[in-house]
């Protein structure tokens, strides 16, 4: 499963600490040296208590947080690897648009821009021409059951669950190489949650490397090929969903 030839994401000894200059230069350590790999077609779920570093890890990979040290290698189309940590800002901006999907429950919808436009624009960024992007956007939104009446409504008017589906549609409009998911179904009702989970499963089957944080263990058990448990900003242990979840539930009880 974790075939070295198919590794898409290779995180090595990633560290992130924040220096809070406004609060006596206090140092907050979020990641203390995380190493992990995700292969094409593999879904790795991150688990651990809140504050363990799950979201920080996703953000540090996407570089919304600038890592303090370590490396994040991403495989490109020509099979070469590039270290996201050492890219310039404009190189990274280009790469984000074309190769990496990032869906977070906290992503803020662009103000006054229609739902359909947001998703179409994500497609154009991935290199689609405008007509193809429009078709793909329509397909994505339908697949996530977003009512067609809402397509030309500004995304900031939507409910939390609707917004989350717009974010998902934009992040997955064409299968990215790497998909980072931070609680992507947390605001969804059971029916919509089901379609979203299905979509994520399909993308994994199509060869996308997925690194995800889910709140509920059921989603993790269903989708993950591997679970990595973080504790205090390092990898605590990892294993199959069955064994890790049993261990996690044991701790919870």
């Amino acid at each position, binding site marked *: 499963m974790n075939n070295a030839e198919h590794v898409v994401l290779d995180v090595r000894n990633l560290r992130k600490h924040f220096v809070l200059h*406004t609060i006596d230069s206090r140092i907050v350590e979020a990641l203390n040296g995380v190493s992990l790999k995700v292969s094409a077609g593999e879904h790795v779920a991150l688990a651990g208590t809140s504050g363990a570093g799950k979201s920080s890890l996703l953000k540090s990979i996407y570089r919304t*947080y*600038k890592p303090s040290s370590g490396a994040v290698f991403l495989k490109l189309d020509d099979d070469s690897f590039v270290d996201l940590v050492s890219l310039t*800002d404009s190189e*990274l901006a*280009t790469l984000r648009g074309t190769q990496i999907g990032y869906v977070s429950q906290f992503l803020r919808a662009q103000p006054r821009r229609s739902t359909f436009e947001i998703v179409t624009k994500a497609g154009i960024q991935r290199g689609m021409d405008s007509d193809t992007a429009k078709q793909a956007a329509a397909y994505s939104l339908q697949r996530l059951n977003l009512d067609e009446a809402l397509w030309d409504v500004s995304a900031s008017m939507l409910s939390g669950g609707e917004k989350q589906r717009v974010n998902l549609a934009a992040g997955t409009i064409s299968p990215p190489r790497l998909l980072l998911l931070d609680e992507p179904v947390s605001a969804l009702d059971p029916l919509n949650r089901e379609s979203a989970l299905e979509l994520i499963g399909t993308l994994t089957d199509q060869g996308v490397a997925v690194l995800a944080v889910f709140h509920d263990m059921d989603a993790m058990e269903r989708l993950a090929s591997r679970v990595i448990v973080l504790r205090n900003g390092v990898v605590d242990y990892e294993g199959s969903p069955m064994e890790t979840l049993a261990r996690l539930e044991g701790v919870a009880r």
Partner: protein
Amino acid sequence: MTSVVSPEWVLKVNQLGKIFGNLSENGLALTGPEIGSSKDPATGAIVAAWDVSFEVAAGEALGVVGESGSGKSTVMRCIAGDQSSSAGSVQIRTSPDEQIDVLSLTPSERRQLRIDKIAVVYQDPAEGLDLNVTAGGNIASPLTAAGWRNFSSIRSRASELLLRTEVPLNRMDDVVKSFSGGMKQRVQLAKALANRPPIVLLDEPTTGLDASVAAGVLDLIRGLLEEFGLAAVVVSHDFSVIEMLTNRCIVLNHGRVVESALTDQLLEDPHHPYSQKLVSAARA
């Protein structure tokens, strides 16, 4: 590791500096963010900007943030040629075989540059427009400067631009001073885009407008930047403007760049003490 391509720059600013007055020998060391002042204690000279460097590609917008007095507008004015600079270089490249060293141009060459290469939209419409002239007349001026002579084609180009910037065509022959603030900004945008320049500099383009009017102008700017694939520099102290229009930023403090970052990173993980102060003030 060479397969990631960095987009080609259209505008490149290298170590730009602007000093008002006579700097003492140690003047640079005695000013800046660490000192907390841009005023040379020995001579009283002001280091308005120093060692400012960045590149902007077509279709990309770079934000310049900082408090008032941090040097944002000085940088903008030096690039636009409204002000002479004391150090550094500004280059523009609009095709592989045309590269212009802006600061070495003669004043008349610079004026030419402003007609069809670099457009500026100012916070104060009076700086970008002649308020005593009609909307159509304001737009006609860069067109005639670029060599347009036929009256009816100038009219039709002007109405095309006003239509695009959502100014009612029946106001085309009214003097601009009779327009509302938001409408003046729309006319400024129409004028700035008259000759399809590849570079546009926006200096606080929505500051001072009512929230709802500012939102409309901001949406228009976003649409224009995307539609024309412009290389843009957006100066603003307002993070919501920066967040909406740009994907990269530099932060200026006492005339120096203290941080450059992707916009989402600057907002979520600012590094420099000054950036942290700015962001926490804006997000509180």
